[in-house]
Structure formats: C-alpha cells, structure tokens
C-alpha cells in the first residue's frame, strides 16, 4: 500500500467515524424525547393544578362552582372499584396461570387458551367497555355500578396477572417440585404449599402493575355508564343510605352509581372554563402520583425479590 493510499484511507475513515459520533448524539436525543416529554407533562400538570391541591379538594364533592369542587366521590370510587377488581382478577389470574404452567397438557385446548390470553392483551380497552355494557350492565343486570366497573377492569388486567404469575412460577426450579412429589404430595399440595408461596413476590409485582394500569383506565368505565357528576358517596356498610333512608347493607355499595378519578378529570378537562381546567390538572397530579408510586413499589419489589431468592 502506498503512502498516498493510506492518507486517503485515513481521511475516509475519519469521515465515517464522524457519522458514528453524529448518530451517537442523534440516538441519545431520540431516547431523551420520552424523558423530555415526561418532564414537560409533569411540569405542565403541576403548574396548572398545584394551587388546587388543598385538603378541601380531597374532601369536597364535585360542584358547579369550580373553586369548591373536589374529588371525594372520585377517589372513594376509585378505591372501591379497585377492591372489586383485585378481588376478581387476582384469584382468577393466579388460578389460570397455575393451570397453564402446572396442569395443562400439550393439546389444542391449551394452545387455544394461550392464544386468547395473548390476543386479549392487545384488545383496545374500550372494547372491554362494550363487552361490559352489553354483558354486565344489561344481560346480567348488574347495572351501571361499581360491580360492573370492577369486573370489567378485572378482565382487562387478567392477562397482566397471568403473565406475571407464570413467569414467577417458571423461575422456581424443577428440583423443588420433584422434592415435594417425592415426599408424597399431590399436585395441588405441591402448588399450594410450595409454588404459590415462593412466587408470591412476582405475583404481587404483577398485581401492583395491573392495578397501576387499572387506576388510570377511563374508556371502559365511561362506556358502562359511570356518570360524571356524582355528588354523593356509594352507601358503605354501617352508614345510612340516603336514597332509601335505611342502613346500608353489606353489598349495596356494589350496585351503586359512582365515579372514578380519571373520569372526573375527563369531565373537568372537557369544560372550557379555566377554573375547571385547574381542577383537571390537580386530579391529574393525584392520578399520576398514585400510578408512579405503584410502579415504583413494583420495581422495588422486583429488585428485592431478585436479591433474596437464592436458588
């Protein structure tokens, strides 16, 4: 190779390396688009609604006067709906995952189930709302109630819980299963005494992630008819139900109309008056803080589990 050849080669290589550096910068910027958006979103919300975050905001009902409106019915509604969601989704999700991991034979029925679980994860959430409207609200006559909403969200987050549970179960080595069998345990005893307790951490993580998602879901709940102006609380057991002037039974709250935080926010952001937009921003802050806290909890849990398990 001649000296001149080497020189041209070196200039060429230098030019190509500049592309390397350029792309390194572009790539980093592209990755930061998400971070910047999150920051902008957060700052926008805080600037828009921070002033509204008073204790009264949390203890007032919605009102036609924006300054006096609050999210009491909304956050109580959210908690009650979450109770139903978790009560329905967690047992079904764990049971389904256990079946698929420990019991299911390799046949077309199992394949069908697995295809459906994957498919359901990709169904738009509003379609769940349509299902709930037709099935829960009318055919089963649960009405436009907390029960319908909780069951709808349960179906929505079922794939999340199933996948998280299956992964936790898979992480347990076969040797532990074999040890249980060798001592004469039945399959169910092996599962309930060993597998489920050991995978509790992973399951819990999945449940928290699912709940974080469910808290922010709006579309399916609107579709089943959650009303946006609820100025009362569902009749909790131990209180007097104002609608009937009788003590509330233990399950009356399930069939009560209700609202949830994201719907309250949606209602307020749909009004042109600036004061209501402030309320919307404040509600947004509450929802995001709740969601972030749950996600952070799940990540922390996952980290702790990884450290503690010594297979």
């Amino acid at each position, binding site marked *: 190779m001649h000296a001149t050849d080497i020189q041209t080669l070196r200039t060429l290589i230098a030019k190509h390396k500049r592309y390397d550096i350029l792309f*390194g910068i*572009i790539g980093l910027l592209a990755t930061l688009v998400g*971070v910047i958006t999150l920051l902008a979103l957060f700052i926008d919300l805080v600037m828009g609604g921070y002033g509204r975050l008073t204790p009264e905001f949390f203890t007032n009902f919605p009102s036609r006067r924006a300054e006096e409106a609050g999210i009491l019915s909304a956050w109580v509604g959210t908690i009650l709906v979450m109770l139903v969601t978790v009560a329905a989704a967690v047992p*079904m999700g764990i049971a*389904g995952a256990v079946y698929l991991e420990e019991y299911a034979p390799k046949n077309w029925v199992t394949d069908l189930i697995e295809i459906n679980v994957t498919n359901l994860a990709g169904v738009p959430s*509003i379609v769940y709302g349509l299902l709930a409207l037709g099935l829960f609200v009318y055919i089963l006559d649960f009405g436009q109630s907390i029960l319908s909403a909780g069951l709808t969200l349960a179906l929505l987050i079922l794939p999340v819980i199933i996948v998280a549970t299956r992964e936790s179960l898979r992480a347990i080595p076969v040797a532990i299963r074999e040890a249980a069998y060798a001592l004469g345990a039945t399959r169910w005893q092996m599962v309930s005494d060993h597998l489920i307790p050991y995978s509790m951490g992973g399951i819990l993580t999945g449940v928290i992630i699912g709940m974080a998602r469910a808290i922010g879901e709006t*579309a399916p709940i609107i579709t089943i008819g959650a009303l946006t102006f609820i100025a009362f609380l569902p009749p909790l057991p131990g209180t007097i139900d104002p609608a009937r002037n009788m003590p509330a039974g233990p399950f009356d709250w399930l069939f009560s109309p209700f609202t949830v935080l994201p719907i309250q926010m949606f209602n307020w952001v749909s009004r042109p008056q600036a004061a209501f937009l402030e309320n919307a921003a404040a509600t947004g802050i509450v929802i995001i803080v709740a969601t972030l806290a749950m996600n952070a909890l799940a990540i922390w849990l996952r980290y702790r589990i990884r450290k503690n398990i010594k297979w």
Partner: protein
Amino acid sequence: MDNFPTLSAGVVMNTQAHRLSEKKLRKVKEKAIETLLFLAAFSAVATTTAIVAILLYEASGFFEHVSIVEFLTNTQWTPMFENPQYGILPLLSGTLVTTGVALAVAVPIGVIVAIYLSEFAPHKVRETVKPFLELLEGVPTVVYGYFALLFVTPLLQIFMPNLPGFNMLGPGIVIGIMIIPYVSSVSEDAMRAVPMSLREGSYAMGATRFQTAVNVVFPASISGVLAAFILGISRAVGETMVVAVAAGQQPNFTWNPSEPAATITAYIVQVAMGDLPHGSIAYQSIFAAGLVLVLMTLVFNILGHMLRRRFREAY
C-alpha cells in the same frame, strides 16, 4: 397380645375400604381443583367469545336498519340527528389520520432509539434510560389527553397560527410519543437477535459501527421492525382518551390532520356518555363501530405476531 386375631374379618375389610375411599376422595378433590383451575384459564377463551358474541349480536341489530353499503360508503356519520346518516367513513378517516400522525412520530424515533440502544449505547446508559421509556407507557391516557389539548396544541399554534383548538395533529403526536417504547422494544429485540458473527463479518471489513448498524443489522432485523410498525398501528388505532379530549368529537370526513375529527373510539365514548335507551339504533351503532375496531386491530395483531415469530425463528 393382639387384638388382631379377635377382630373379625369384617373390620379388617373396613379398614382397607376406608383407606381406599380416602384415596378416592383425594383423587376426586384433585380433579375438582384441576377443573376449577381449568375454568379460570378458560375464562380467556370465554372472554374473547363473549366479546365477539356481544359485538355481533348488537351489530346485527344495527345492520337490520342500516345497509352495509350505506355503512361503508356514506361520508356522513350523524346518528343523533333528525335525519341520521350512518356512514363509517368519517370515523375511519379520523382513526387513520390520527394513527398516521402517531406512526410518523413513533416509527422513525422508535427505530433510531432501537438502533442506538442495541448497537451504540454503553451498558450504563441503556440501564438508566430504559426505565424512563417504560414510564412513558405508565401514564394514564386521560392525562396524555390533557397534555395534548393544553400543551401540545398551543405549542403547535405558535408555528401554525390557524390551527384550531381541536385537531388531530396534537393528539396524534402525543399518541406517537406514547408508543415509542413499544415500537423501540420490539425493534430492539429483533436487532439483538441478529447473531454477532454477522456483525463481526462487517467489522472485519473495516466498517464503522454506524455502517454496520445500517448495512447489516438493520436489514437483518427488518421483519422485526415491520412487526413493531404493525403492532404500533394496532395500539394507535385502539387509543381512545387522547383523541376524545383533544381532537374534538365531531365526525369529520377529512384527511387533513390540522382539522378536528372523531375517531371510532372517540365516537363510542361520546355516545356512551349520553343517555342511551337500551336497544335503540344509536346504542347499537356503537357496537357496530366496535366491531369495525376489533376487526382492524385483530388483523394487525395477527400480522404483527406472525412477523415476530418469524424473526425469532430465523436465528
């Protein structure tokens, strides 16, 4: 000594039978538990069936009153008017335009992010950045709607002074940013699946990192990138709240993203918020719209998953 000789043969038989029936009881219990677990798992199939059944049932009611031809060709969607029009085209155009804007944002950025994380970024950068990307997916969509309406649109109006307050550009961009992590993670998976030997072959020829990424890694993972694109379409099509808040809710048959419009999903929300007499045409119309939505997302989901399996098996 032994009670045994004095025990009658009958008692001995009873003990054996007792043990046998215990075993049988255990078996019955195990089978019952297995059946319960199976039913829980089968609920996934039941849910899908229920969704399809409900949509078909109510939509068929709808199509008794509205011809399919009108449904597919009319450019007006005004079910609540005095003289109702039932053409799905305005809702379709709204959905497609918003999705188009979203993908125009998500795919280039998502692919660049994927190449960067897969081929360029040092390990520490990757570990720090990925959680933030995942966080993008955790923000509730109604909050994104607020952001699109009250931050992004005003920002756009600085550059486009004639942009109406409700438009498809703002929510489209926000949806795009929202699904960047989805597009980038599927693409990145495909790129990481490309074997090192192919990269080494390129480096051995004196190529730089960028040349290797563009000339070898990207083409080798193209089916994965395509899968990401298609799955991204599915996500954007199904998005509801961002458009419901920020695009206005007036069906508008247009391909211009700076105009307000309603998507299929926004329409369903709008109608469901009002008072719907059960069994009315308006009530049934949301199921017909839902059916179109499910068909669209189903096709894209299946295509996307088939492509994903292809790139997983190729290596």
